[in-house]
C-alpha cells in the first residue's frame, strides 16, 4: 500500500524521515533537505556575502553532499560565496589515493577550484610511514592532529574567510557522548558549537550540523552523487568507536535521540569554578593550540627523534621521555642539568628547522597542486567509470541497502531491486541486520580518518 507524500500528496512517498517520522516523495525530500540546510546557514549566520569559503573535501558522502548542496544553495539563494575545495592527502595507500580521485571528480562536476595538501609535504611523513613507526594503535591521533592543522594551513594558503566541514548530526552527538565518557569537559563545552575558532584563526562551520547521516546517504543516493565509501585502512580500535556503537544502538530505539543529545550539549553549562584550558597559539608553528607547544609539533618531534609515542598519553610522560632521550645523547656526568639545558637548545633548534621545512613545504605544495591539475583533466572520464564500479564493489552499498530497507517505503523496494540486481532475493533479506551491524563495526574510524577536520578527536 503506497503511502502518499506528506507534503505534496500527489506522489507516493519514497522515504520516512528519521528525524520527524514524516514520509516524503523524492522531490519533496530534496526540497526539505536543502531548505533545512539553507535555514541553518541563514539563521546561524555562517557566511557573509562575498566570502571565500573552503569546503573540506574528503570524497566521502558528507563532504560530497556538502559541496553539492552548497553549490546549489549558493546559486539558488544568491549567497554570493566563492566556493572552493580543500583536500588533505594523508598518504594512506589504498584509501586516500582513491578517495582523492573522487574529490577531483567533484571538482570537475561542481566547477570549483581544488587544493590538495599532503602530510608528506607539510610534515615530511605520510600516514603509511607513521603507522610503520607507531603501529596500528593510536595512529588516529597523528592523523587527526595533523589534519586539523593541515586544514588551517590550507585555508591560509587559499586566503579563505572560513572552512566548511561535513560534520553531520550523528558525528556531533557521537562527540558529545565520547567527551562525556572521556571526561573532557573543555571539548564537551565547545563540540556542539556550529562555528568554532577563536580570534585570529580561520573559523570552521558545520552547515550539516542538524542533518542526519541517514538522510545524507539517501540524498546522495537519489541524486546519484559520486562518492567514496571505503573505510580508512587503518580503522583502529579508537575509543570513538565505543561512542559510535552506543549511538547507533540508541538511534535504533529512538531516532530522535541524536537531536536530543545535540540539544543537551547545546544547553549544558559548565560550572563557573571549573577551570578550562585557554586557547592560544603554539610558540613554534604559530597555529592554534591550548598548550605552549601544540600537539602537532610534539607529535612531529617525537617522529623525528624516533620516539613515536612522545605525544601519546600524559604530557608528564612526554617530558620524561624527552629527558631520557637527551641524557642518552649527552653521555655526560651531570645528566639532569645538561638534559634541561639541552631541552631548551633543542627547542630553539627545532623551531628553526621547522621554519626552514615550512618554506620548503610551501614550494612543494604549489608544484604538487599544479601537477595534480595537469594530471587530472585527462583522467576524468576514466575516473568516472572506475568510481561507479568502485562504489558498487566496496561494500558501501550494503549500508545503503540496509538503510533503504529501514527507511525506504515498501512501494519502492522493487526499484531498489532493479537498481542493484545482485542484492536480489535471499541476499536482500540477509542484508538487513547482520550486514548492518558488521558494517557499523568497521565504521569505527570514519570520523577520525574518513573525513576532514575532526578537530574533536585524537589528542
Amino acid at each position, binding site marked *: 500500500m503506497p503511502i502518499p507524500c*506528506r*507534503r*505534496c*500528496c500527489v506522489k507516493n512517498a519514497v522515504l520516512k*524521515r528519521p*528525524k*520527524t517520522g*514524516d514520509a*516524503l516523495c523524492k522531490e*519533496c525530500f530534496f*526540497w*526539505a533537505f536543502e*531548505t*533545512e540546510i539553507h*535555514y*541553518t546557514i541563514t*539563521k*546561524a*549566520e555562517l557566511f557573509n556575502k562575498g566570502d571565500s569559503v573552503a569546503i573540506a573535501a574528503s570524497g566521502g558522502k558528507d563532504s560530497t553532499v556538502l559541496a553539492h548542496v552548497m553549490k546549489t544553495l549558493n546559486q539558488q*539563494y544568491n549567497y554570493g560565496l566563492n566556493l572552493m575545495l580543500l583536500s588533505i592527502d594523508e598518504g594512506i595507500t589504498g584509501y586516500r589515493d582513491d578517495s582523492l580521485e573522487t574529490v577531483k571528480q567533484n571538482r570537475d562536476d561542481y566547477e570549483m577550484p581544488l587544493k590538495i595538501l599532503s602530510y608528506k609535504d607539510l610534515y615530511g611523513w605520510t600516514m603509511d610511514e607513521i603507522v610503520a613507526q607507531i603501529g596500528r594503535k593510536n595512529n588516529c591521533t597523528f592523523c587527526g592532529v595533523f589534519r586539523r592543522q593541515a586544514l588551517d594551513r590550507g585555508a591560509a594558503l587559499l586566503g579563505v574567510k572560513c572552512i566548511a566541514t561535513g560534520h553531520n548530526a550523528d558525528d556531533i552527538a557521537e562527540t*558529545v*557522548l565520547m*567527551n*562525556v*565518557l*572521556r*571526561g573532557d*569537559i573543555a571539548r*564537551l563545552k565547545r563540540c556542539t558549537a*556550529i562555528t568554532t575558532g577563536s580570534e585570529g584563526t580561520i573559523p570552521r562551520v558545520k552547515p550539516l*550540523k*542538524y542533518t542526519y547521516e541517514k538522510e545524507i546517504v539517501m540524498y546522495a543516493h537519489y541524486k546519484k552523487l559520486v562518492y567514496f565509501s571505503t573505510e580508512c585502512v587503518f580503522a583502529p580500535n579508537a575509543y570513538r568507536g*565505543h561512542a559510535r*556503537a*552506543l549511538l547507533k*544502538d*540508541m538511534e535504533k*530505539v*529512538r531516532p*530522535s*535521540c541524536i*537531536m*536530543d*543529545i*545535540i*540539544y*543537551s*550539549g*547545546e*544547553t*549544558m*553549562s*559548565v*560550572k*563557573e569554578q*571549573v577551570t578550562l584550558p585557554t586557547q592560544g597559539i603554539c610558540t613554534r608553528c604559530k597555529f592554534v593550540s591550548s598548550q605552549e607547544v601544540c600537539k602537532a609539533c610534539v607529535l612531529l618531534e617525537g617522529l623525528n627523534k624516533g620516539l613515536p609515542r612522545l605525544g601519546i598519553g600524559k604530557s608528564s610522560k612526554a617530558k620524561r621521555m624527552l629527558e631520557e632521550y637527551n641524557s642518552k645523547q649527552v653521555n655526560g656526568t651531570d645528566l639532569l642539568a645538561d638534559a634541561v639545558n639541552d631541552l631548551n637548545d633543542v627547542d630553539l633548534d627545532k623551531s628553526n628547522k621547522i621554519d626552514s621545512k615550512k618554506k620548503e613545504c610551501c614550494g612543494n605544495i604549489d608544484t604538487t597542486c599544479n601537477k595534480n591539475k595537469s594530471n587530472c583533466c585527462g583522467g576524468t572520464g576514466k575516473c568516472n567509470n572506475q568510481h561507479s564500479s568502485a562504489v558498487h564493489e566496496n561494500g558501501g552499498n550494503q549500508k545503503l541497502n540496509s538503510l533503504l530497507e529501514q527507511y525506504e517505503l515498501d512501494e519502492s523496494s522493487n526499484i531498489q531491486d532493479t537498481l542493484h540486481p545482485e542484492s536480489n532475493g535471499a541476499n536482500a533479506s540477509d542484508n538487513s541486520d547482520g550486514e548492518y551491524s558488521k558494517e557499523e563495526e568497521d565504521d569505527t574510524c570514519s570520523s577520525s580518518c574518513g573525513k576532514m577536520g575532526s578537530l574533536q578527536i585524537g589528542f
Partner: protein
Amino acid sequence: MICKKCDSPKTVVLRQKDFYCDECFMISTNHKFRACLGKNKILAPNEKVLICLSGGVSSSVLLDLIQYGISLENTKKLRIVPFFIHIFDVESKTATDFILEQCKKYNFNVYMVHLSDYLNTSCQLPEQNCIPEVNCDVANQFHSMQNSMPPTARNDLLLTIKRTLFIKYAKLLQCNIVFTAETSNTLAIKLLCNLAVGRGSQVQNDIGFSDTRDEKVRIIRPMRDISKEELDYYIKIKQLYPICNSSINNTNSLQSVIASFVFDLQENFQSTISTVCKTADKIGVCADRTLGKCLICESNFNDVNFKLSALEATSISRTVSFANISSNHNTDLSNIFKNDSHTAVFPLVHKYLCYGCSRIHSEMKRSTLPPHLQIL
C-alpha cells in the same frame, strides 16, 4: 596478597587491583557515606530525613548504614530523625513484603505508597507498616497512561513521578531532606540517559549531590561515591539479602541500551563510571529562575536566546515536511507551527514544559494526564 591498610590477608578486591580486608573495607565504605554528608554540611542536628527504600542492593545498604550511624553513641553518631518510604507498583508484591520485613528487623516504621498516588490530589499520610488499599480506577488510569508511552519515555517519566512523590511525602512529614540510594553506577547511567533525552541542562539536579529544584525539600544522594562493586561486598559481608530489582527492565529503551553499554565498557575500562561521574560534577545548571519552570519535572527552562538550537532545527524539519507549506522561500519558517500542539514536535515547550518533558508529552495520550497537568 594483603590488605592495603593493615597487613591482614585480603578478602576484598576492588577495581581488580586494590586489596582490602573485610574490616578496612567496611570502615572505608562507611566513611565514604559519612564524608559525603559531612563535607556538604547540609544536615542540621536532629534533621528530619525521609529515606527512600526500594528493597534493592543499594537501598538495603543505605538502610544498614543509617541504622549503624544512628546506633553509635559517640561523637560520630548520625544525628537525624529518619522516616522511611517505599513506593510500590501492583506487580511488586514480593518487594512490599520484603520491605515490611526488612524495616521490622531494623525496628523502623515505613510508609508504603502506590505509584498511582501521583494522580491523586488529596494529601493524606497512609498508615505505617502496612500496604494501603489501592483505588483500582486510579491505578488503572495510571497504568493506561504508562502503557500509552514508548518504553524510553515511560522510564523517563517514572523517575520524575517518583521524585514528585518523594517531595510530596517529605512535605507531609515535614522533612526538608530526602535521601535516595543512588550509587555511582546508577548515576553514570542516569547522566547518559539525561543527555539522550535532551535533559543536558538538568544534569546537576538529576545527578549531582543534591536536587534543589524544590524550594523547600532537597533530595540528597549520600551514596554517590560508592560503586555497585563495593555494595556487593558490603551485602556479602553483612549478610544482607536484598531482592533483585531493577527499574530499567525494558529491553527496548534508551535506558536499557545505555545501562548495558556502561556495564560492558566498565569491564574493559575500569575508570569509565568514575570518569562519567566526575564529568557530571563539572556540569552546572541554568540558574535563571525568571524563565519559568517545567510543570512536570520542575526544571528551569533553558535560555532560548541563542541563534539556532536543535529544538528549532527539529521544528523546522517538521515544518518543511508538512503538507500546507508552499515552496515559497520567503515564508518565515520558524513561526508557523510554534503554537499548534497537534502538529508541533515539541508541544508547549518553554511555556509549560521543558524540552525533555515536551518530548514525553508528545508521545503519550493526553487524556490520561494527572489533574494538575490537565490544562495542557
